[in-house]
């Protein structure tokens, strides 16, 4: 079935289709059922699947993630919601020391088909504790797939891939993209794990960006195109595993790299990518690879400050121009 849905609706749609497809799938989290989610991204699921399969939980994130792990051990395929990605803080042990390590520590006796979903990112004025790009807290952790969908289409397909995956997947849903519209084809084949999307092709600069930064990169691309500069925008879609090959293929054309990342640079996926590419593909660079990230500060509340904190489309365009001057 093909429908026009928002990013927000694509979430409920993907969860619904997975609940439909496999009776072992269950979905739970804080206020995901009766209230349809704090972001209204799970509206209608309780009504459709009932309180056994769609459950509201107490405010207990450690218990939510632990329940997903245990339920997976018992034979279910749980989808659990952590409302804001920042709340990874209160269940970090369950994600990092339990969920991610279970298979390894048991030498494969236990595999955990768990999907964790959470609302990510800055730009909406939620302040320092509700605005973080939490994916950067988890990229150092082996044992997790990490996905960062930027469009309604990708959100739908990645969520379905995640639920069908036999290992844990953390899906970051960007708060500032909930209203984006897209065309969802529920019969399209499952999107493979770890495959990047070349969003726009160009020969001058390779720009790698996720979520709202991807959209800002596309905006910059349009601005630059008017100047005759054609940038290639790559959305990795998955941070673990990372589609280095897609970036390398692009660099072979452009020889210039800009990585745009929401969140501070140290420990982020952008730096990790640049370090890998420099080690293995140093000769591809005709100019120093550039990072464009948020400054090394918490996310401020004030609109003027938060806007300044986030890399903007003009920032992206400026970086590209500079790269071409080298």
């Amino acid at each position, binding site marked *: 079935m093909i429908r026009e849905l928002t990013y927000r609706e694509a979430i409920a749609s993907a969860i619904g289709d997975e609940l439909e497809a496999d009776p072992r799938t269950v979905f739970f989290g804080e206020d995901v059922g009766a209230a349809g989610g704090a972001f209204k991204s799970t509206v209608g699921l309780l009504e459709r699947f009932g309180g056994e399969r769609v459950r509201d939980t*107490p*405010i207990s994130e450690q218990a939510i993630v632990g329940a997903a792990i245990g339920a997976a051990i018992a034979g279910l395929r749980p989808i659990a919601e952590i409302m804001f990605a920042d709340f990874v803080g209160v269940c970090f042990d369950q994600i990092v020391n339990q969920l991610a390590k279970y298979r390894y520590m048991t030498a494969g006796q236990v595999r955990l088909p768990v999907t964790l979903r959470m609302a990510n990112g800055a730009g909406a004025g*939620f302040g*320092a504790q509700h605005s973080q790009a939490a994916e950067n807290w988890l990229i150092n952790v082996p044992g997790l797939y990490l996905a960062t969908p930027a469009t309604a289409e990708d959100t739908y397909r990645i969520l379905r891939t995640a639920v069908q995956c036999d290992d844990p997947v953390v899906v970051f849903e960007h708060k500032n993209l909930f209203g984006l519209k897209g065309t969802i084809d529920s019969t399209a084949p499952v999107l493979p794990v770890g495959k990047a999307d070349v969003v726009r092709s160009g020969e001058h600069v390779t720009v790698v960006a996720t979520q709202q930064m991807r959209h800002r990169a596309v905006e910059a691309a349009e601005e630059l195109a008017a100047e005759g500069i054609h940038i290639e925008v790559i959305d990795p879609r998955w941070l673990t595993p990372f589609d280095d090959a897609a970036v390398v293929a692009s660099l072979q054309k452009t020889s210039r790299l800009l990585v745009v990342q929401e969140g501070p640079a140290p420990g982020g996926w952008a730096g990790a990518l640049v370090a890998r590419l420099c080690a293995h593909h140093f000769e591809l660079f005709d100019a120093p690879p550039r990072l464009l990230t948020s400054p090394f*500060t918490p996310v401020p*509340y004030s609109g*003027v*400050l938060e806007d300044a904190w986030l890399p903007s489309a003009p920032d992206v365009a400026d970086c590209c121009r500079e790269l071409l001057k080298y």
Partner: protein
Amino acid sequence: MTAVYEAQARCEDIWETLLDSMLRIRYFENEVKALFGSGLVRGSTHLCQGQEATVVGACSRLRPGDMMASTYRGHGAVLATGASPTAAFAEILGRDPGLCGGKGGSMHFTDLTHGAIGSNAIVGAHLPIAVGAAFGAQHLKSGAVSLAFTGDGSTNIGAFHEALNLAGIWKLPVVIVIENNHYGEYSPLAATTPISALVDRAKSYGIRGEVVDGNDVLAVRNVVGEAFDRARDGNGPTLIEADTYRFEGHSRSDPGKYRPPGELESWLARDPIERFADLLKEREIAGTEIVEAHRQQVGAEIAAALQAAKAAPEPQPERLYEDVIG
């Protein structure tokens, strides 16, 4: 040993403070609601209207040097410490003279000069901090008490447990007031919590528990006063469950449709401000006209505060980088 407080005690000395404080919160939040409606506030906001008696009654026991920690639903608690409504408005508007320079926002009111040590947007996370503040006071023998407000739903999170246990074993001068408004975000308490009297959890920590009508400002003042005396006398912490209700939805986007019919109305009939006004009249402390004069005066104060806040400047761009480390 402790002074005797009675709910029926005369309140000649304090009624104006209590009344004005409740009115200040009520009118402040009326404006916040309106500001949201007109798109002037970012992110989310959590009104405490209906719960004014709990924060005002409790904070009326604070002395200089005492410390008060609250939740994201913290406008009332922080205003009740004496914080400036102008600075509070400015904070919500993200302006430079805001309580936190516009960097905190609605969920993060802090005013150290009035002992308001922080409003926290992570459920329960302020409790270990409040307990730590009590440890500091105990250690320094400063005689200070640490007061913390927390929600009914927050009693299910790990930090609540760890904080109360530490308070219990170290017999710390901390008073924890559960603002039991019967809902988490949208979930009724009974859906997430297997016991109905939250105060019973005090027993798990060997600490004293008290229940109070959270819409009766004098009753709250009395029970908190006794708890403060015990704390100052070295007799350890108290957990107080205040029965109350929020008149508004959980946050700006919530119309509160999950409430059973009639529930809101029955609580509106117990409006803490109107009840206090009735009591003042009944006891012949202040008649309708005098109370009306207070309404006018506080209303004017709030209007002026809003005016001043709206005229306040945005933070300078360099503020983004300040106050991280160093």
